[in-house]
């Protein structure tokens, strides 16, 4: 029994599915008193779902609940709302701040739990009319602020505080709750500057020293290495590994996050790797800076040869996704980029497109497709706008040629095995995998010289995944198309790419051959973490 008590939180065999899709499978973890427990994993690995279950969020109950048990300090609990979780001593520091701008820091810390003094009306009409005990509230707030080393008056209004301070006010609010046992930090450093992040980590350590257990959700390896005691990696809803930080290394964690038993996605006979070293340079990128929030590229340099499949990998948030988005002009960027020797003009919208670069975006529904339009319309649209294809003469103007559009859509549907009722079906009604095939068909219809595919297999089923990968290999082999593929799935990159660049901290850390060892990839991916360990 005493042994049990050591754990503040025990999650046992937690499983959850959303309308038949398992998002968490048999995940168990235990957090001790005063421990900093890092919860890691790529986007969509199931971290948020796990936390929603812990807090009894309504979204969990309205979608059929979950299986498994939750114990707080050895007692089984079943939270029906976040309020229950709060009562039991669990707090959350949100990624987006939940503060009231017009209130002072003290008021924000105490909101919902105000100290009050009785007044004459309150004696008659009940406690709702009691007045605030401001001196006590301010004093309590001061204690909480001092605890986290925030040197700012508790009577300052929250509106206008720097972002970093707001984060600390959130923490102060949580630790002011008297019985707080467990605090969840959901990617707290994502919006902070480096020095603010450092201070936050220190605060976490001092809180842990006071006996509060902390669950620390983050992508950043360096932070985990710096403060965490224990870590768990989730991947596609499954627990990959749980290890004490002392027994592991940044390199190993990076491997755990991306590596998995390599499944053969493309058969070798379908992807004969030819030497492209003698070929001309298709794309040359020098010192590319892309200001994409969360995926900033800071001085990327690489060259891709014609006819090559070039992979770009790395952990989330390191900047790999920023590279294609910057090239396509989605975010402000600068640098020297040449496409088949022609200089790319970043100030001219659509310049990369007209130079023969086609892009399949990682944000399928947001950027990749017109969800309300038909499959055929989506497929022809890019070629229609950039190349003025699929138009036929109509008096003084040119109109869409529905016949050619539909014939081409039919070919593409057959070629890529898009499962649909026909070319006229609304794209929004398709499954993720089939939507992705439409995106690919649309990019190919533009007859690009270089095809850039960003996260082509995110969120799609294995069948569609295999088909898309095989088709990419086929395009290169049969048509000599140059392909740049950005992916979080190292296994995928390794199964078709000729060379793989690993992006870390916004820069290319290393360019590796697909058959380089897991350790080498792990080393490159965790480079930023190791650098900060040394410094």
């Amino acid at each position: 029994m005493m042994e049990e008590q050591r754990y503040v939180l025990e999650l046992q065999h937690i499983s959850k599915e959303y309308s038949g899709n398992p998002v968490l499978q048999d995940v168990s973890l235990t957090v001790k008193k005063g421990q900093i427990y890092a919860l890691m994993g790529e986007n969509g690995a199931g971290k948020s779902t796990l936390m929603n279950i812990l807090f009894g969020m309504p979204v969990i109950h309205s979608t059929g609940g979950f299986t498994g048990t939750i114990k707080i300090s050895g007692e089984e609990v079943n939270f029906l709302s976040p309020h229950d979780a709060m009562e039991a001593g669990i707090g959350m520091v949100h990624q987006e701040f939940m503060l009231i701008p017009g209130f002072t820091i003290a008021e924000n810390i105490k909101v919902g739990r105000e100290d009050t003094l009785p007044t004459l009306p309150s004696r008659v009409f009940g406690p709702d009319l009691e007045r605030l005990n401001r001196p006590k509230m301010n004093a309590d707030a001061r204690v909480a602020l001092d605890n986290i080393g925030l040197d700012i008056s508790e009577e300052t209004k929250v509106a206008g505080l720097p972002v970093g301070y707001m984060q600390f006010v959130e923490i102060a609010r949580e630790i002011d709750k008297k019985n707080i046992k467990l605090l969840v930090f959901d990617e707290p450093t994502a919006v902070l500057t480096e020095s603010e992040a450092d201070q936050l980590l220190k605060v976490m350590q001092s809180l842990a020293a006071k006996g509060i257990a902390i669950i620390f959700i983050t992508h950043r390896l360096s932070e985990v290495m710096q403060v965490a005691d224990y870590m768990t990696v989730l991947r596609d809803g499954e627990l990959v590994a749980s290890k004490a930080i002392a027994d592991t290394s940044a390199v190993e964690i990076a491997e755990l996050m991306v590596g998995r038993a390599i499944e053969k996605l493309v058969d070798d006979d379908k992807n004969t790797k030819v030497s492209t070293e003698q070929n001309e340079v298709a794309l040359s990128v020098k010192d590319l800076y892309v200001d994409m929030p969360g995926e900033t590229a800071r001085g990327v340099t690489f060259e891709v040869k014609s006819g090559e499949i070039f992979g770009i990998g790395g952990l989330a948030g390191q900047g790999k996704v920023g590279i294609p988005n910057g090239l396509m002009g989605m975010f402000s960027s600068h640098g020297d980029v040449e496409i088949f020797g022609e200089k790319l003009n970043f100030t001219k919208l659509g310049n990369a497109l007209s130079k023969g670069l086609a892009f399949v975006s990682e944000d399928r529904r947001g950027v990749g497709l017109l969800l309300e339009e038909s499959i055929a319309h989506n497929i022809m649209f890019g070629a229609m706008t950039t190349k003025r294809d699929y138009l036929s003469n109509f008096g003084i103007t040119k109109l869409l040629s529905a016949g050619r559009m539909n014939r081409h859509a039919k070919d593409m549907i057959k070629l890529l095995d898009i499962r649909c009722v026909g070319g006229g079906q609304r794209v929004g009604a398709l499954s993720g995998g089939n939507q992705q095939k439409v995106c690919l068909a649309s990019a190919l219809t533009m007859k690009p010289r270089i095809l850039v595919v960003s996260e082509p297999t995110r969120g799609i089923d294995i069948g569609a995944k295999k088909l898309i990968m095989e088709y990419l290999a086929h395009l290169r082999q049969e048509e000599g198309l140059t392909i740049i593929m950005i992916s979080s799935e190292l296994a995928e990159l390794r199964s078709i790419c000729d060379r793989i660049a690993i992006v870390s901290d916004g820069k290319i850390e290393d360019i590796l051959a697909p058959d380089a060892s897991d350790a080498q990839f792990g080393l490159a991916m965790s480079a930023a973490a190791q650098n900060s360990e040394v410094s």
Partner: protein
Amino acid sequence: MERALGALKQGAKDFGLPRIIILAFFFILLLAAALVGMDIPWLISDVLLRWGMWGILVLAMVPSIRSGIGPNFGVAIGIAGGLLGALVSIELRYFGFLGTLDPDGITFGLVSISLAVLLALAFSSLLGILYGLLLNRVKGNEMIVSTYVGFSFVALFNILWLLLPFRSSTSIWPIAGQGLRTTINLVDDFGRVLNNLFRVEIGNFIIPTSLLLTVLLFCFVIWVFNKSRYGMVMTAAGSNPEYAKARGINVNRARIVGTTISTALAGVGIVMFSQGLGFLQLYNAPMWMGFSSVAAVLIGGATVKRAAIFNVLLGTLLFQGILTVALPVANELVPEGNLSEILRLIISNGIILYALSKARGGSK
């Protein structure tokens, strides 16, 4: 049998329940009109006339919705431009621009209205560009902003109507010798020209052929534009700006183009409206025309994100049809004093409210 029933069900779903209800209401009104002994052919003629008069004003909603600014509540801006165009055309006639054309001949009428339309297009397009630039600064709040910009334009033009140096005796107050009248008779200009050209009369039933053809012509032009490259580009920019950006489309420019076409159509629309009425209505008359136009297109099945020509034609017919039939029926049923006017307001605003609440509509 089963399949036919299925197809029918799907067809009804595409058409949309709100439209079926409104259509049923329209027929019930017609039935009521017949029961109280009203002249049905005459009523239907009036519905057709109003359909033609409002058609282009409602058509103005299509480019604005497709370009992403939503229903153009600010058609008053285009209307102001259109009125200015019509007024200048009157002025030109007054100073002898039309030369020796026979004032009673058909050529005179056609030249007169073409002139008014061209001038309306010019003035409204200019205002539309400025209006588009403004709307690009208030992204996300277009509907409310455009409503109030429309109101402000009405106020601004109220001042201009008093100050602009028009001289034509048809337009200005005869005694004061300056300032434009509240209603200007178009009998010497293009009043009812298109109503009467190639008019088909069968007893009391009248079809304003040329007016309807003109509306259909403008619908066709917009339909062609929608199928053209830039039309599709504009639609994409409107329905998903990020998608458009990734394909090298200048979203702001597409929005300005959409707003400008919409405003220009509103200018033409008010010329057609005045033509059908036989009068120009200045000052506060355009204030609420935006709401009627928006309501009509929404009733026709458009949403704030999608609109097609079909929505315009059906919506205008239903909206104006109900208003036209409801008023005399209400008059017959409640002859006492002001009640019928109140009833009319309840019905017209009720349809607008219903249209706005059902803004999702069918898929066509």
